[in-house]
């Protein structure tokens, strides 16, 4: 049953108790994301230090289990990485959701990769892909800090 793959334990658990929820103190980069069709929204806050390392990251927002879990897992994995590593992880994740069977990056350890792969269940739910990717797109925007609001329709 596909539903089991979508709503794995870890997704449900992160969805219910999302990590890094709130507004990081002293953030210096942020962006908002929005899914106009369903009303989901997310706001990602980032503290990038001088070495361009993500010192802190958090998010605010509301959304379905998938989107909350995705944001929760994402923030957990990105914290402590520098911006190039972060970008590689993001790209790898989006590629996996889109088409790749697996994650390819060499930055995350196996445990972390397993966590991320839990989100691969959405591949069978095209309308839910946006839920899984919204926070990631918003993170990209925050890092570029171009101030542009991200919508999953673009």
């Amino acid at each position: 049953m596909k539903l089991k793959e979508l709503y794995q334990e870890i997704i449900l658990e992160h969805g219910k108790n999302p990590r890094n929820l709130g507004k990081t103190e002293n953030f210096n980069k942020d962006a908002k994301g929005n899914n106009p069709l369903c009303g989901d929204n997310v706001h990602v806050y980032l503290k990038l230090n001088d070495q361009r390392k993500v010192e802190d990251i958090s998010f605010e927002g509301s959304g379905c289990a998938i989107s909350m879990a995705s944001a929760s897992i994402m923030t957990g994995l990105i914290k402590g990485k520098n911006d190039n590593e972060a970008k590689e992880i993001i790209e790898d994740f989006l590629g996996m959701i889109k088409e790749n069977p697996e994650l390819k990056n060499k930055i995350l350890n196996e445990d972390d990769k397993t966590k991320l792969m839990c989100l691969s269940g959405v591949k069978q739910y095209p309308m839910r892909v946006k839920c899984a990717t919204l926070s990631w797109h918003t993170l990209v925007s925050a890092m570029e800090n171009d101030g542009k609001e991200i919508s999953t329709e673009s």
Partner: protein
Amino acid sequence: MNIDKIKKEFPIFDEKIHNTDLVYLDSANSSQKPKVVLDRINDFYSKQFSNVGRSVHYLAVAATNLYENTRSSVQKYINAKDKNEIVFTKGATEALNLVANTLGQSILEENDEVLITELEHHSNYVPWHFLRKSKNIKIKFAEINEDGDIPIENIEKEITDKTKVIAITHLSNVTGAVLPIKEITQLAHSKGIIVVVDGCQGGPHLKLDMQELDCDFYAISCHKMYGPTGLGVLYGKKKWLEQLPPYQGGGGMINEVKKDGISYGDLPNKYEAGTMATAQVIAFDQSIKFLESIGIEKIIEHEKELIEYGQEILQKNNSVKLIGSPKERGGVLSFTIEGVHPHDIATILDETGVAIRAGHHCCQILHDKLGIPASARASLGVYNTKDDLDKLNEGINNCKKIFDLK
């Protein structure tokens, strides 16, 4: 009313979804189509097709007559006084844009107020917002009460001597609240205010009687009334349609065209520029015949029974919270489950063939007011049964199981 028999008229219910029967509870979004409508489309294209109104050959004459027949059928169905008060559009959204735009061109002035409600669909807000931007009019919102109703007092309260238009839904596509249009119109007209009704949900669920309601404009969405996509109807009182300027320009809507000036045609041509949705208009006649063959009173009664049953079982279900408890509710049951996001509900229900909608249903103002980003919505059509609502309830229980709720 024999629902089994009615359901058999809809080919879609022969299909399997995820290997189970389809439980279609998304009719407020768009209704399914009976076979007579599909057959009419097919027959028209394959045996009678021609453009209407423009050629004098056999097919063109026949098509023009069929096209105008639908106009007469709609007139009768909604009890409009005059056939020329029926304008075909591409949808209710276009109908509402037409009204806002032409009122904006000719009647509304800076600082005039348009009064809408917190229940309005974006299609009955954004067109007025355009005028807020271009003409600096004001938009006011009549507030819902705790039942998700708009009592007439809440409208009266917002009326000032600047109020020129009240634009309001007949039946909320979220709370299902039926608004007292007739009374609102009386109030409005006593103050010289124009009443524009968003009849998208009124169309399929309520008895339509324009002369009784007495509103100035009424917008209908044909695809929600068992008709084809790409078609809407704007009812407008003749005095307005004659007085207001045209909306789109092109072939068919003109009287005389010269290099230095253009005069426009009479009703209904004036508002039907370019080649219209000929086949859809012609097929919509069958949708009306279908509705008439059952009788709107019977449909209302049937849906009322379902709504009551649905309310009952959902109210009994722990963690489920119904949105609104309006005095009169038509066709729609929106709800949330504490701890499960509406999108997750919809996905999980879908797995057992139960199609509902999750989101803000194009009513972001209302959801903001309710303090929720989204809701789940089960909406009814003439083909639904209590069994469908039981399956909805089972699906909800399945959500709760997956999310480990009581």
